[in-house]
Protein backbone atom coordinates (compact mmCIF):
# COMPACT_ATOMS: atom_id res chain seq x y z
CA UNK A 1 0.00 0.00 0.00
CA UNK A 2 1.34 3.36 -1.02
CA UNK A 3 0.17 6.96 -1.10
CA UNK A 4 1.77 8.94 -3.91
CA UNK A 5 1.50 12.71 -4.23
CA UNK A 6 3.12 14.12 -7.34
CA UNK A 7 3.91 17.77 -7.97
CA UNK A 8 0.91 19.08 -6.07
CA UNK A 9 0.13 22.73 -6.62
CA UNK A 10 -2.65 24.05 -4.41
CA UNK A 11 -4.40 27.37 -4.66
CA UNK A 12 -6.69 29.28 -2.35
CA UNK A 13 -8.44 32.22 -3.95
CA UNK A 14 -5.86 32.47 -6.77
CA UNK A 15 -3.01 32.45 -4.22
CA UNK A 16 -0.62 29.53 -4.27
CA UNK A 17 -0.39 27.96 -0.81
CA UNK A 18 1.61 24.88 -1.78
CA UNK A 19 3.94 24.64 -4.73
CA UNK A 20 5.21 21.40 -6.17
CA UNK A 21 4.76 19.13 -3.16
CA UNK A 22 5.75 15.52 -3.87
CA UNK A 23 6.07 12.60 -1.51
CA UNK A 24 5.53 8.88 -1.30
CA UNK A 25 4.20 7.28 1.86
CA UNK A 26 4.52 3.52 2.39
CA UNK A 27 2.13 1.44 4.47
CA UNK A 28 3.31 1.31 8.07
CA UNK A 29 4.86 4.75 8.14
CA UNK A 30 3.75 8.21 9.10
CA UNK A 31 4.33 11.69 7.80
CA UNK A 32 4.47 14.75 10.03
CA UNK A 33 3.65 18.11 8.46
CA UNK A 34 5.08 21.15 10.17
CA UNK A 35 5.23 24.79 9.25
CA UNK A 36 4.05 28.18 10.45
CA UNK A 37 0.41 29.30 10.38
CA UNK A 38 -0.74 29.83 6.84
CA UNK A 39 1.89 27.58 5.29
CA UNK A 40 -0.74 25.30 3.78
CA UNK A 41 -0.84 22.30 6.13
CA UNK A 42 -4.64 22.21 6.34
CA UNK A 43 -4.97 22.94 2.64
CA UNK A 44 -2.66 20.06 1.80
CA UNK A 45 -4.63 17.68 4.03
CA UNK A 46 -7.93 18.80 2.49
CA UNK A 47 -6.48 18.25 -0.96
CA UNK A 48 -5.27 14.77 -0.01
CA UNK A 49 -8.74 13.91 1.32
CA UNK A 50 -10.24 15.03 -1.98
CA UNK A 51 -12.20 18.09 -0.79
CA UNK A 52 -9.99 20.47 -2.71
CA UNK A 53 -9.00 19.87 -6.28
CA UNK A 54 -5.29 20.56 -6.87
CA UNK A 55 -4.47 23.20 -9.49
CA UNK A 56 -2.08 20.64 -10.90
CA UNK A 57 -0.47 17.39 -9.85
CA UNK A 58 -2.12 14.27 -8.52
CA UNK A 59 -2.73 12.16 -5.43
CA UNK A 60 -3.07 8.43 -5.81
CA UNK A 61 -3.36 5.59 -3.38
CA UNK A 62 -2.10 2.27 -4.65
CA UNK A 63 -2.46 -1.29 -3.53
CA UNK A 64 -5.74 -1.02 -1.68
CA UNK A 65 -7.45 -4.19 -2.66
CA UNK A 66 -7.95 -7.55 -1.15
CA UNK A 67 -10.25 -6.28 1.56
CA UNK A 68 -13.00 -5.26 -0.84
CA UNK A 69 -12.08 -7.30 -3.88
CA UNK A 70 -11.50 -4.55 -6.41
CA UNK A 71 -8.37 -4.74 -8.50
CA UNK A 72 -6.47 -2.47 -6.14
CA UNK A 73 -4.95 -0.41 -8.92
CA UNK A 74 -5.96 2.89 -7.45
CA UNK A 75 -9.01 4.38 -5.80
CA UNK A 76 -10.29 7.63 -4.38
CA UNK A 77 -8.32 8.64 -1.31
CA UNK A 78 -11.50 9.99 0.29
CA UNK A 79 -12.98 6.51 0.35
CA UNK A 80 -10.13 5.00 2.35
CA UNK A 81 -9.21 7.76 4.77
CA UNK A 82 -10.23 9.11 8.14
CA UNK A 83 -10.20 12.89 8.12
CA UNK A 84 -10.03 14.75 11.42
CA UNK A 85 -10.05 18.48 10.87
CA UNK A 86 -10.30 21.46 13.18
CA UNK A 87 -13.94 20.63 13.91
CA UNK A 88 -14.84 17.49 15.80
CA UNK A 89 -17.78 16.22 13.76
CA UNK A 90 -19.79 15.68 16.93
CA UNK A 91 -23.52 16.30 17.36
CA UNK A 92 -24.16 18.03 20.66
CA UNK A 93 -27.71 16.64 20.96
CA UNK A 94 -26.52 13.03 20.80
CA UNK A 95 -24.69 11.21 23.59
CA UNK A 96 -21.08 10.14 23.17
CA UNK A 97 -22.11 6.55 22.52
CA UNK A 98 -24.79 7.61 19.99
CA UNK A 99 -22.30 9.78 18.12
CA UNK A 100 -19.82 6.94 17.83
CA UNK A 101 -22.49 4.36 17.00
CA UNK A 102 -23.58 6.53 14.09
CA UNK A 103 -20.03 6.87 12.78
CA UNK A 104 -19.32 3.18 13.29
CA UNK A 105 -22.39 2.29 11.20
CA UNK A 106 -21.89 4.99 8.61
CA UNK A 107 -18.16 4.44 8.05
CA UNK A 108 -18.28 0.65 8.40
CA UNK A 109 -16.04 -1.15 5.95
CA UNK A 110 -15.71 -4.82 5.08
CA UNK A 111 -12.59 -5.00 7.24
CA UNK A 112 -14.83 -4.18 10.24
CA UNK A 113 -17.33 -6.97 9.74
CA UNK A 114 -15.56 -9.15 12.32
CA UNK A 115 -16.66 -6.93 15.19
CA UNK A 116 -20.13 -5.69 15.99
CA UNK A 117 -20.83 -1.96 16.04
CA UNK A 118 -21.47 -1.98 19.80
CA UNK A 119 -18.17 -3.76 20.36
CA UNK A 120 -16.18 -1.27 18.29
CA UNK A 121 -17.86 1.70 20.00
CA UNK A 122 -17.14 0.26 23.46
CA UNK A 123 -13.47 -0.31 22.60
CA UNK A 124 -13.03 3.18 21.17
CA UNK A 125 -14.64 4.78 24.24
CA UNK A 126 -12.34 2.77 26.46
CA UNK A 127 -9.15 3.69 24.59
CA UNK A 128 -9.92 7.40 24.87
CA UNK A 129 -11.12 7.06 28.48
CA UNK A 130 -14.66 8.17 27.69
CA UNK A 131 -16.58 5.23 29.23
CA UNK A 132 -17.89 7.33 32.09
CA UNK A 133 -19.24 9.89 29.61
CA UNK A 134 -20.87 7.40 27.21
CA UNK A 135 -24.44 8.44 28.06
CA UNK A 136 -23.86 12.17 28.40
CA UNK A 137 -24.93 14.44 25.52
CA UNK A 138 -21.84 15.72 23.77
CA UNK A 139 -23.09 19.28 24.23
CA UNK A 140 -22.27 19.06 27.96
CA UNK A 141 -18.67 17.98 27.37
CA UNK A 142 -15.55 20.12 27.63
CA UNK A 143 -13.59 21.03 24.52
CA UNK A 144 -10.94 18.40 25.31
CA UNK A 145 -13.55 15.69 25.89
CA UNK A 146 -15.26 16.55 22.60
CA UNK A 147 -11.89 16.38 20.90
CA UNK A 148 -11.29 12.90 22.32
CA UNK A 149 -14.74 11.85 21.17
CA UNK A 150 -13.95 13.15 17.68
CA UNK A 151 -10.68 11.23 17.68
CA UNK A 152 -12.39 8.05 18.92
CA UNK A 153 -14.00 7.97 15.46
CA UNK A 154 -10.61 6.81 14.15
CA UNK A 155 -11.06 3.52 15.98
CA UNK A 156 -14.70 2.65 15.23
CA UNK A 157 -14.10 1.93 11.56
CA UNK A 158 -11.01 0.71 9.77
CA UNK A 159 -9.35 3.07 7.32
CA UNK A 160 -5.82 2.53 5.95
CA UNK A 161 -5.02 6.24 5.88
CA UNK A 162 -5.48 8.75 8.72
CA UNK A 163 -5.37 12.46 7.91
CA UNK A 164 -5.12 14.45 11.13
CA UNK A 165 -5.11 18.23 11.20
CA UNK A 166 -3.63 19.47 14.49
CA UNK A 167 -5.24 16.63 16.44
CA UNK A 168 -3.75 17.64 19.81
CA UNK A 169 -5.54 20.98 20.00
CA UNK A 170 -7.24 21.26 23.43
CA UNK A 171 -5.99 17.82 24.52
CA UNK A 172 -4.17 17.46 27.87
CA UNK A 173 -0.79 15.71 27.85
CA UNK A 174 -2.26 12.36 28.95
CA UNK A 175 -4.78 12.40 26.11
CA UNK A 176 -2.11 13.42 23.62
CA UNK A 177 -0.13 10.34 24.69
CA UNK A 178 -3.19 8.16 24.13
CA UNK A 179 -3.53 9.63 20.65
CA UNK A 180 0.15 9.05 19.82
CA UNK A 181 -0.17 5.45 21.02
CA UNK A 182 -3.24 4.95 18.83
CA UNK A 183 -1.40 6.38 15.82
CA UNK A 184 1.65 4.20 16.44
CA UNK A 185 -0.51 1.08 16.79
CA UNK A 186 -2.24 1.99 13.51
CA UNK A 187 1.18 2.31 11.83
CA UNK A 188 2.45 -0.97 13.25
CA UNK A 189 -0.67 -2.63 11.78
CA UNK A 190 0.46 -1.43 8.36
CA UNK A 191 -1.62 1.77 8.20
CA UNK A 192 -0.55 5.23 7.12
CA UNK A 193 -0.97 8.53 8.90
CA UNK A 194 -0.35 12.12 7.92
CA UNK A 195 -0.38 14.50 10.86
CA UNK A 196 -0.16 18.27 10.76
CA UNK A 197 1.09 19.49 14.10
CA UNK A 198 2.93 22.22 15.96
CA UNK A 199 3.93 19.95 18.84
CA UNK A 200 6.68 17.36 18.61
CA UNK A 201 4.76 14.08 18.65
CA UNK A 202 6.52 10.76 19.15
CA UNK A 203 5.15 9.14 16.01
CA UNK A 204 7.29 6.19 14.87
CA UNK A 205 8.31 5.57 12.16
CA UNK A 206 7.69 8.95 10.60
CA UNK A 207 9.28 11.37 8.21
CA UNK A 208 8.74 15.08 8.32
CA UNK A 209 7.83 17.62 5.70
CA UNK A 210 8.25 21.25 6.57
CA UNK A 211 6.10 23.69 4.65
CA UNK A 212 7.02 27.33 4.29
CA UNK A 213 4.61 30.22 3.97
CA UNK A 214 4.43 31.73 0.53
CA UNK A 215 4.24 35.47 0.53
CA UNK A 216 1.53 36.90 -1.71
CA UNK A 217 2.25 35.83 -5.24
CA UNK A 218 0.63 36.74 -8.46
Amino acid sequence: MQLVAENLVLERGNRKVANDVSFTLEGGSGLVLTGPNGSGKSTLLRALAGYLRPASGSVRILGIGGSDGDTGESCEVGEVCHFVGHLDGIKSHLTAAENLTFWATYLSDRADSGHSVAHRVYDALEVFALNALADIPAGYMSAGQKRRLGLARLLVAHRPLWLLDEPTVSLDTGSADILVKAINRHLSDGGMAIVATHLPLAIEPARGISLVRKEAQA
Partner: protein
Amino acid sequence: MSAFLALLKRDLMLSVRQGGALGTALGFYMLVVTLLPLGLGQDLNLLSRIAPGILWIALLLAALLSLGRVFSSDHEDGTLDVLATGRMPLEMVVGAKALAHWISTGIPLALTAPVLGLMLNLDIAVYPLLMATMLVGTPAVSFIGAVGAALTLRSYRGGLLIALLVLPLYVPTLIFGMAAVNGLLGVSGTSAAMLILAALSLTSVVLCPFAAAAALRVQMQ
Protein backbone atom coordinates in the same frame (compact mmCIF):
# COMPACT_ATOMS: atom_id res chain seq x y z
CA MET B 1 -27.33 0.84 2.27
CA SER B 2 -26.71 0.59 6.01
CA ALA B 3 -24.84 3.92 5.83
CA PHE B 4 -27.86 5.51 4.12
CA LEU B 5 -30.23 4.18 6.79
CA ALA B 6 -27.85 5.20 9.58
CA LEU B 7 -27.77 8.78 8.28
CA LEU B 8 -31.55 8.86 7.80
CA LYS B 9 -32.09 7.56 11.32
CA ARG B 10 -29.61 10.02 12.82
CA ASP B 11 -31.24 12.99 11.07
CA LEU B 12 -34.71 11.95 12.24
CA MET B 13 -33.39 11.44 15.77
CA LEU B 14 -31.78 14.89 15.70
CA SER B 15 -34.97 16.53 14.44
CA VAL B 16 -36.85 15.00 17.39
CA ARG B 17 -34.14 15.92 19.93
CA GLN B 18 -33.66 19.45 18.69
CA GLY B 19 -37.39 19.92 18.34
CA GLY B 20 -37.20 23.47 17.08
CA ALA B 21 -37.43 22.89 13.34
CA LEU B 22 -40.77 21.08 13.21
CA GLY B 23 -42.34 23.25 15.93
CA THR B 24 -41.34 26.41 14.08
CA ALA B 25 -42.62 25.11 10.76
CA LEU B 26 -45.99 24.00 12.18
CA GLY B 27 -46.39 27.19 14.21
CA PHE B 28 -45.60 29.33 11.17
CA TYR B 29 -48.05 27.31 9.04
CA MET B 30 -50.86 27.82 11.56
CA LEU B 31 -50.16 31.52 12.00
CA VAL B 32 -50.12 32.31 8.28
CA VAL B 33 -53.35 30.42 7.71
CA THR B 34 -54.93 32.08 10.74
CA LEU B 35 -53.93 35.58 9.66
CA LEU B 36 -55.32 35.32 6.13
CA PRO B 37 -59.05 35.07 7.03
CA LEU B 38 -58.57 37.99 9.40
CA GLY B 39 -57.22 40.01 6.51
CA LEU B 40 -59.75 38.81 3.92
CA GLY B 41 -62.92 39.22 5.95
CA GLN B 42 -65.83 36.91 6.74
CA ASP B 43 -66.94 35.90 3.24
CA LEU B 44 -67.20 32.12 3.79
CA ASN B 45 -67.73 31.36 0.10
CA LEU B 46 -64.60 33.26 -0.81
CA LEU B 47 -62.59 31.54 1.92
CA SER B 48 -63.66 28.04 0.99
CA ARG B 49 -62.91 28.74 -2.67
CA ILE B 50 -59.35 29.94 -2.05
CA ALA B 51 -58.62 27.64 0.91
CA PRO B 52 -56.66 24.98 -1.04
CA GLY B 53 -54.42 27.66 -2.55
CA ILE B 54 -53.80 29.30 0.82
CA LEU B 55 -52.98 25.97 2.43
CA TRP B 56 -50.57 25.03 -0.35
CA ILE B 57 -48.71 28.35 -0.44
CA ALA B 58 -48.45 28.51 3.35
CA LEU B 59 -47.09 24.95 3.33
CA LEU B 60 -44.35 25.93 0.86
CA LEU B 61 -43.34 28.90 3.00
CA ALA B 62 -43.37 26.83 6.20
CA ALA B 63 -41.23 24.10 4.62
CA LEU B 64 -38.72 26.75 3.50
CA LEU B 65 -38.08 27.79 7.11
CA SER B 66 -36.31 24.58 8.05
CA LEU B 67 -34.52 24.03 4.73
CA GLY B 68 -31.63 26.32 5.62
CA ARG B 69 -30.52 23.94 8.37
CA VAL B 70 -30.45 20.81 6.21
CA PHE B 71 -26.72 21.06 5.49
CA SER B 72 -25.54 24.06 7.50
CA SER B 73 -25.76 22.39 10.92
CA ASP B 74 -23.59 19.52 9.64
CA HIS B 75 -21.23 21.98 7.98
CA GLU B 76 -20.74 24.05 11.13
CA ASP B 77 -19.63 21.16 13.34
CA GLY B 78 -17.45 19.46 10.73
CA THR B 79 -19.79 16.50 10.25
CA LEU B 80 -20.26 17.21 6.55
CA ASP B 81 -16.55 16.73 5.86
CA VAL B 82 -16.65 13.30 7.45
CA LEU B 83 -19.89 12.37 5.68
CA ALA B 84 -18.13 13.12 2.40
CA THR B 85 -15.43 10.55 3.11
CA GLY B 86 -16.28 6.88 3.03
CA ARG B 87 -17.84 4.76 0.36
CA MET B 88 -21.26 6.39 0.20
CA PRO B 89 -21.32 9.00 -2.58
CA LEU B 90 -22.28 12.55 -1.63
CA GLU B 91 -25.39 12.19 -3.79
CA MET B 92 -26.68 9.53 -1.41
CA VAL B 93 -25.85 11.74 1.57
CA VAL B 94 -28.02 14.46 0.01
CA GLY B 95 -30.75 11.90 -0.67
CA ALA B 96 -30.80 10.68 2.92
CA LYS B 97 -30.88 14.21 4.33
CA ALA B 98 -33.59 15.41 1.96
CA LEU B 99 -35.65 12.31 2.71
CA ALA B 100 -35.25 12.98 6.43
CA HIS B 101 -36.42 16.57 5.85
CA TRP B 102 -39.49 15.30 4.00
CA ILE B 103 -40.37 12.82 6.76
CA SER B 104 -39.79 15.29 9.57
CA THR B 105 -41.33 18.37 7.93
CA GLY B 106 -43.23 17.60 4.72
CA ILE B 107 -45.41 14.84 6.11
CA PRO B 108 -46.36 16.62 9.37
CA LEU B 109 -47.27 19.78 7.42
CA ALA B 110 -49.44 17.80 4.99
CA LEU B 111 -51.20 16.08 7.88
CA THR B 112 -51.89 19.41 9.60
CA ALA B 113 -53.57 20.90 6.53
CA PRO B 114 -57.10 19.51 7.23
CA VAL B 115 -57.10 21.01 10.73
CA LEU B 116 -56.32 24.38 9.24
CA GLY B 117 -58.84 23.75 6.47
CA LEU B 118 -61.56 23.85 9.14
CA MET B 119 -60.70 27.47 9.84
CA LEU B 120 -61.09 28.31 6.15
CA ASN B 121 -64.49 26.65 5.74
CA LEU B 122 -62.97 24.16 3.31
CA ASP B 123 -65.44 21.52 2.04
CA ILE B 124 -64.78 18.33 4.00
CA ALA B 125 -65.04 16.27 0.79
CA VAL B 126 -61.86 17.96 -0.45
CA TYR B 127 -59.73 16.97 2.58
CA PRO B 128 -58.52 13.55 1.40
CA LEU B 129 -57.59 14.88 -2.03
CA LEU B 130 -55.86 17.93 -0.61
CA MET B 131 -53.77 15.79 1.72
CA ALA B 132 -52.99 13.37 -1.10
CA THR B 133 -51.69 16.18 -3.34
CA MET B 134 -49.58 17.48 -0.48
CA LEU B 135 -48.11 14.08 0.36
CA VAL B 136 -47.35 13.44 -3.32
CA GLY B 137 -46.03 16.96 -3.93
CA THR B 138 -43.89 17.61 -0.84
CA PRO B 139 -40.98 15.31 -1.79
CA ALA B 140 -40.28 17.80 -4.59
CA VAL B 141 -40.34 20.58 -1.99
CA SER B 142 -37.69 18.87 0.13
CA PHE B 143 -35.45 17.70 -2.70
CA ILE B 144 -35.51 20.93 -4.73
CA GLY B 145 -35.02 22.78 -1.46
CA ALA B 146 -31.92 20.69 -0.76
CA VAL B 147 -30.32 22.16 -3.90
CA GLY B 148 -30.99 25.66 -2.59
CA ALA B 149 -29.66 24.72 0.84
CA ALA B 150 -26.47 23.32 -0.70
CA LEU B 151 -25.94 26.39 -2.89
CA THR B 152 -26.30 28.81 0.02
CA LEU B 153 -24.31 26.70 2.49
CA ARG B 154 -21.62 29.24 3.21
CA SER B 155 -23.43 32.46 2.42
CA TYR B 156 -24.31 34.91 5.14
CA ARG B 157 -28.08 35.00 5.77
CA GLY B 158 -28.47 32.04 3.46
CA GLY B 159 -32.07 31.50 4.57
CA LEU B 160 -33.43 34.46 2.62
CA LEU B 161 -31.37 33.55 -0.42
CA ILE B 162 -32.81 30.03 -0.38
CA ALA B 163 -36.31 31.49 -0.66
CA LEU B 164 -35.32 33.51 -3.72
CA LEU B 165 -33.62 30.55 -5.36
CA VAL B 166 -36.11 27.88 -4.58
CA LEU B 167 -39.60 29.43 -4.59
CA PRO B 168 -39.64 29.91 -8.39
CA LEU B 169 -38.76 26.23 -8.77
CA TYR B 170 -41.83 25.29 -6.73
CA VAL B 171 -44.14 26.84 -9.34
CA PRO B 172 -44.83 23.60 -11.27
CA THR B 173 -45.54 21.70 -8.06
CA LEU B 174 -47.93 24.41 -6.92
CA ILE B 175 -49.69 24.63 -10.28
CA PHE B 176 -50.32 20.91 -10.58
CA GLY B 177 -51.09 20.53 -6.88
CA MET B 178 -53.82 23.13 -7.27
CA ALA B 179 -55.00 21.62 -10.57
CA ALA B 180 -55.50 18.27 -8.84
CA VAL B 181 -57.51 19.80 -6.00
CA ASN B 182 -59.60 21.98 -8.28
CA GLY B 183 -60.47 18.94 -10.34
CA LEU B 184 -62.72 17.80 -7.52
CA LEU B 185 -64.11 21.28 -7.14
CA GLY B 186 -65.53 21.14 -10.66
CA VAL B 187 -62.71 21.30 -13.19
CA SER B 188 -61.70 18.10 -14.97
CA GLY B 189 -58.39 16.30 -15.00
CA THR B 190 -57.71 15.45 -11.38
CA SER B 191 -55.94 12.22 -12.10
CA ALA B 192 -53.84 13.74 -14.89
CA ALA B 193 -52.71 16.56 -12.62
CA MET B 194 -52.00 14.08 -9.85
CA LEU B 195 -49.82 12.00 -12.16
CA ILE B 196 -47.85 15.04 -13.28
CA LEU B 197 -47.42 16.04 -9.62
CA ALA B 198 -46.04 12.57 -8.87
CA ALA B 199 -43.76 12.83 -11.89
CA LEU B 200 -42.42 16.17 -10.67
CA SER B 201 -41.67 14.67 -7.27
CA LEU B 202 -40.00 11.57 -8.68
CA THR B 203 -37.92 13.60 -11.12
CA SER B 204 -36.68 15.89 -8.37
CA VAL B 205 -35.90 12.90 -6.13
CA VAL B 206 -33.71 11.50 -8.90
CA LEU B 207 -32.06 14.67 -10.25
CA CYS B 208 -31.76 17.06 -7.30
CA PRO B 209 -29.25 14.97 -5.30
CA PHE B 210 -26.78 15.30 -8.20
CA ALA B 211 -27.19 19.08 -8.36
CA ALA B 212 -27.01 19.47 -4.58
CA ALA B 213 -23.94 17.21 -4.28
CA ALA B 214 -22.15 19.19 -7.00
CA ALA B 215 -22.94 22.41 -5.13
CA LEU B 216 -21.71 20.91 -1.85
CA ARG B 217 -18.42 19.85 -3.42
CA VAL B 218 -17.77 23.41 -4.51
CA GLN B 219 -18.75 24.81 -1.10
CA MET B 220 -16.54 22.37 0.81
CA GLN B 221 -13.30 23.33 -0.94
